[in-house]
Structure formats: C-alpha cells, structure tokens
C-alpha cells in the first residue's frame, strides 16, 4: 500500500502504473460517477488488451466507449450495454468479449471481493438462464447458487471531494459502483474535483476511508457534454 503522504499524485504517474492486459474496474452508472479524466489519460497512454468491469459501456464516444472504439478493450464485464450501439456491434462481431451479470449480482460480486470474501450464496436467477451452469451448494435444506467474488488489478473511481490521504466523498447518484470498486481492486486510483488537506472532511461524511485508496488525483470539474452527460437524455 502506498504511504499516506505519497498518495496525492499527478494523473500521468497514477495511470502509468497500469500495464497492458490489466483488469480495471471503472466506476459510474451512465455518466455520473464515471472517472472521465482518468479514462482519457488511459486512452492517451495507450495501454491495451484491457479487461474492463463497469456497470455499462457508457455511450459511443463517451467514457469507456472511447477505449472500446480504440480497440483497447478485450473483455468487458458488465450489466447492461444497451446504450452503446458501438459496443454491441463489437460484441456481435466477436471483437469484444462481453460477460453480462444482473446488476445487483455484479455489484455484490465486486463488494464480495472488497470485503475480502471469495463469493456468496444467492437465490437470484434461480429458474432463469442466469443459473445455468452455476455452481451450487445445499445449505439448510435449500439449494443456493454460488457467485464468485470479482477482484481486479485496478479501479478507477470518481469522487466529488477527497483529501490527500485518499479519503473520498461521493455526490448524488455519482456514488453507484465507486465505493465498491474502491474496496475490490488491488490498486485504486481516485479522481476528485477537489483534493484538500487531511482534516477537511467530516468524519461521518467520508464514504470511502483512505485505507482503500492508492492514488488520488485532482481533476477539473467536467465542463464538456462528454464529461457530464448521462447515458440517456
């Protein structure tokens, strides 16, 4: 883990730690909470053969949509990509391997990793094709499906505010998958619109304690449509 006083870094350095072939969790549900600046830096640096884990594929030309269009993503683990026709086309052509999970199971697979577990027992999806081939276990006279935990090498998360130790506060519906991914990945890179000195954030208001965050970078509040547009009008 990075020492506390070494976490506040330039964005180039933080993203440069990501190698080709890395698995990367990316926060956001649609646009809110998507770490656009970190994604753009990843696009600029050129890492490829990436496995991305994100609720959705953003939209064409937006967020991870750009990485997919640039052919940098080999595999996408997601819940719903209906708003990115480019991603759907890449999937249908076999250029992008897509694994789909029900949204709440995806969230919990990530949370399970974040909690240091290795999976959980669920009845979600029983009686549907989601349960086909899923490992099962008998417990208390019933059959439960096993959903393995989903770990990743990196997480890119977006916060509204941070301090330079990496304590994070999310805003409105920009929270979504960010706090879960911040716990689940080995190395967590957070962007925030404002990074203050430790002590600036109220103790009870901190959503992600700094222990989980490896690097924190300050980014300008998004001003372009791309940086703030939700995935549907």
């Amino acid at each position, binding site marked *: 883990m990075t020492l506390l006083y070494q976490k506040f870094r330039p964005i180039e350095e933080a993203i440069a730690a990501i190698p080709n072939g890395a698995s990367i969790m990316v926060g956001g549900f649609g646009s809110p909470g998507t770490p656009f600046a970190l994604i753009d830096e990843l696009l600029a640096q050129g890492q490829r053969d990436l496995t991305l884990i994100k609720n959705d594929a953003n939209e064409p030309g937006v967020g991870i949509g750009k990485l997919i269009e640039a052919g940098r993503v080999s595999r996408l683990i997601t819940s719903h990509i209906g708003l990115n026709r480019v991603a759907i086309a890449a999937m249908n052509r076999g250029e992008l391997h897509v694994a789909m999970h029900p949204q709440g199971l995806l969230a919990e697979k990530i949370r399970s990793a974040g909690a240091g577990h290795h999976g959980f027992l669920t009845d979600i999806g029983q009686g549907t094709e989601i349960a086909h081939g899923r490992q099962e276990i008998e417990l208390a006279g019933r059959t439960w499906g096993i959903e393995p935990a989903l770990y990743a090498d990196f997480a890119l998360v977006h916060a509204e505010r941070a301090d330079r130790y990496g304590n994070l506060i999310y805003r409105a519906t920009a929270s979504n998958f960010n*706090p879960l991914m911040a716990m689940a990945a080995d190395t967590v890179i957070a962007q925030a619109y404002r990074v203050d000195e430790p002590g600036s954030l109220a103790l009870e208001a901190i959503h992600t304690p700094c222990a989980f965050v490896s690097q924190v970078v300050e980014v300008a509040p998004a001003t372009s449509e791309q940086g703030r547009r939700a995935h549907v009008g």
Partner: protein
Amino acid sequence: MSADQQRILARAAREVVAGQIVNLGIGLPTQLFHHLPEEMEVLVHSENGVLGCCPRAVGEAPDWDMIDSGGAYIATRPGASVFDSAMSFAMIRRSRVDLTFMGAFEVDELGNLANWKIPGKFSPGIGGAMELAQKVKRLVILCSHNDKQGNPKILKRCRLPLTAPTCVSRIITDKAVMDVTPEGLVVVDIAEGLSITELREATEAHLIVDEARLGRF
C-alpha cells in the same frame, strides 16, 4: 405518447398507495413518474442509487450527478437519500420495495415474466430487472396487450428467456387489468368499449372472467 399508453398509466397510478416505496422500470413505467400527485407521500426508488426521486420542476437546470436508472436527470423530494449500488440492491433483495412497475415482452398464466432478451436479436444485458422482479413485494406489468404485429403478449407459457419465474402480481395493458392467481389469470377490469370475446381473441392465455365483478377503465 399514445392514448392507449395514457390509459395504461392512468390506471397504473391507482395502484400506488400513499406511504409506499415504488420502483419504476425503464420505458413506459418511468412515465408514471409524472402521474403521481406531488403531495403524495411516496418515495420512488431507482436502482442506480436514489430513493425519493421526482421529476425536475419545469425549467429547473439538470444536476449532472443526479439521474435515475433510465438516465433521465431528476430531482429529489423531502425524505430522499442516495447510496451505492450494493445498498440499492440490498434494498431490492430484502424486499424493501413495496411495488414495482415493469414492461414486458411476454407474461404468462403463472406470472412468469420475460422482458430482457430476444435470442439472436436483442440482448444488451438484464440490468437490475431480475432482482427487482424476483424480490419486489408486488410486481405490476405495464405493456401493450399485443405486439406490433398483433401477436398476443399475454401467453399460456413464456417462450423467451425469463426475467424471473412466477413473479407478476398484476398486468395492466391497453385492453385489460389481469391478476395472477393460483387459478390462473383473472380479469379485473376491461377497457371501455371492448367485449370479452374481443379480449379473449387478443390473448393466448386462458382468462377467467366474472362478468358481475368486472370493472371498466
């Protein structure tokens, strides 16, 4: 929006009880948002992580961080909260959502629901529908009675991959309001001007009708 859709929404709004927590699925159900009286103490849940969302006031600027799961920019009402995706689905799986409205490709006599995948044609992922359908206390389906080709959507048995088995409580279409019961589909209301024979012809499922108790909508 068509007159049929308007009628479905007006009828659906009567399902909501003050004091409830309600989720509105993508598509037609989202529109119900605009049919709930502002003063009604109802908290609308959206699975991206907000409880208590409501439409923005006319002319109110969007808050770029505040969307519902359909991606619309929303506002919140007093008593609202925001939270992460794990908390949002914990709420769903623990059946803390009283009532959910969803669209459907197919519904059947057992209350099975298919609304996420057409093999070979449409499979963008299931999103949050599976957990909502399986765990909500009461699931009401809002959909057209027939598809664009006129084929029935209310079937004896669903043919498409299921969202969840035996999950539907009530179906509201442009032609009828039907309850899923142990005996089968019971028609509660029938559309103004439609005959029972016409309704049966537009439906694959067997419909149980007690004319004495039949309402109109």
